């Protein structure tokens, strides 16, 4: 069975719905019309570019090219994690937390899956490597960004309570324990919910795509399970990595809470 080929007209009809929504929102003064259109335009351009890059990549399977593209994706994801936090960490370590956690959550997991589970020849076969990495990056980023945002905000909000615990002779690990637990929860809950709802409430995107592409449902389910396990583990490891890095950075070697290592809030930035 072949995929139904989409024509430009087919896509225009779907896009018209978004334009209609923007018009309605503008008419009812609900806001967001401009942002919606800009986001849609960005998506069109980005996806078209990615499509071209992938087409080129699949035609020229080279390890260095795969690594180069992976790095670009990884750095972009790290930057995105940082930009989503309300209170950002000052200096290069602010990017380091994002990139480091995304490396653990996506890059290392993707390499493991390619080498041990998928075992294509060559192992970096772009047709598997890039979609896997992209799927992992996109899906683990939400959890990690939530955890990072929550952690810096909580340390800021609960400065007095954390310092009170330090005054009572607790270590930085003990004084930050409640906050760490809270952030682990914030980072993992969306994923746990989506695992619990998968198949009942929603058909996962990748499985839907494969079924539309003609894969037998049971095969699509197996791939979906594989990717969900990887996303789940990746998110967890990535969240833990980000929590430990932030904890380590916001206290100094004398176990003092160092909120001067956070950037002050920039009121105009959302």
């Amino acid at each position, binding site marked *: 069975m072949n995929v139904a080929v989409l024509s430009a007209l087919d896509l225009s009809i779907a896009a018209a719905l978004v334009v209609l929504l923007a018009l309605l929102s503008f008419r009812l003064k609900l806001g967001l019309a401009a942002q919606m259109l800009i986001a849609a335009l960005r998506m069109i351009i980005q996806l078209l570019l990615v499509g071209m890059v992938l087409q080129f990549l699949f035609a020229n399977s080279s390890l260095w090219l795969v690594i180069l593209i992976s790095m670009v994706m990884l750095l972009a994801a790290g930057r995105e994690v940082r930009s989503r936090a309300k209170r950002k960490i000052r200096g290069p370590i602010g990017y380091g937390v994002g990139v480091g956690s995304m490396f653990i959550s996506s890059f290392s997991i993707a390499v493991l899956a390619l080498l041990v589970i998928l075992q294509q020849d060559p192992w970096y076969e772009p047709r598997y490597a890039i979609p896997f990495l992209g799927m992992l990056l996109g899906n683990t980023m939400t959890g990690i960004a939530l955890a990072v945002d929550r952690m810096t905000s909580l340390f800021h909000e609960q400065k007095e309570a954390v*310092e*009170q615990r*330090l*005054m009572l002779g607790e*270590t930085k690990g003990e004084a930050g324990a409640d906050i760490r637990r809270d952030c682990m929860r914030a980072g993992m809950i969306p994923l746990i919910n989506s695992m619990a709802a998968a198949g009942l409430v929603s058909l996962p995107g990748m499985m839907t795509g494969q079924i539309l592409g003609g894969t037998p449902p049971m095969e699509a389910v197996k791939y979906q399970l594989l990717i969900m396990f990887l996303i789940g583990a990746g998110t967890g490891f990535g969240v833990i990595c980000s929590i430990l890095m932030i904890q380590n950075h916001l206290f100094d070697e004398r176990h003092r809470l160092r909120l001067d290592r956070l950037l002050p809030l920039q009121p105009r930035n959302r």
Partner: protein
Amino acid sequence: MKEPVSPSSSPDPDQLIVSGLRFGSQGPYDFSLAPGMCCGLSGVSGSGKTLLLRAIADLDEHQGECLLNGISSSAYPAFEWRSRVALVPAESRWWHELVGDHLIYRDGEKRAVDLLVSCGFGAEVLNWQVQRLSTGEKQRLSVVRALLREPSVLLLDEIGSSLDGDSELLLEQMLMDYRRRRRASILWVSHSPGQLARVADTLLVLHPDRLEAVQEVSQNQFAQKNQEVSP
């Protein structure tokens, strides 16, 4: 500055020595606290009393040294230094639901209950919800919480400010008992000349560049001093 507040010339092994302490643009400050001594600390608002206590407790970056038992704070693990040199802040913070969860019972629950009773509570307070405590109750309980950890030095930051007269006296009594029993020294920041006259053996007034020792503890003289430094 004049002779530090230590009364004896031979250094006691247990005494807290602060030497050349600087933080922000303030200092250097030098003084020492002999075991069992209670020293009042005063100064106009914004003169940095809280910052001085925080620097001694090693909660903020600072230059200079604080020594206990002749050992510099930097040679202790940070948490151990802070459990020996305990800062009780003006506004206490609580993170568990029940009061009892914040207290540690090194010598069993009896010691905690004794302390609670000595500052006017009953044992049932252990099961009280922190949320329902008044500011004054929190202040008294935060002192109990600190004392249960048996510190050698107490740094008290205006802990009596929300208390009525009777509770204040009970709290002072509890701290004086602890000081005698444990031979602990106390650095007590207070705006109340009456309170300092009751509890302090010596008085210091904090200035941006020095600590002024007020030799004789008398309520009137201290009140005068306080007025002099007020703008």
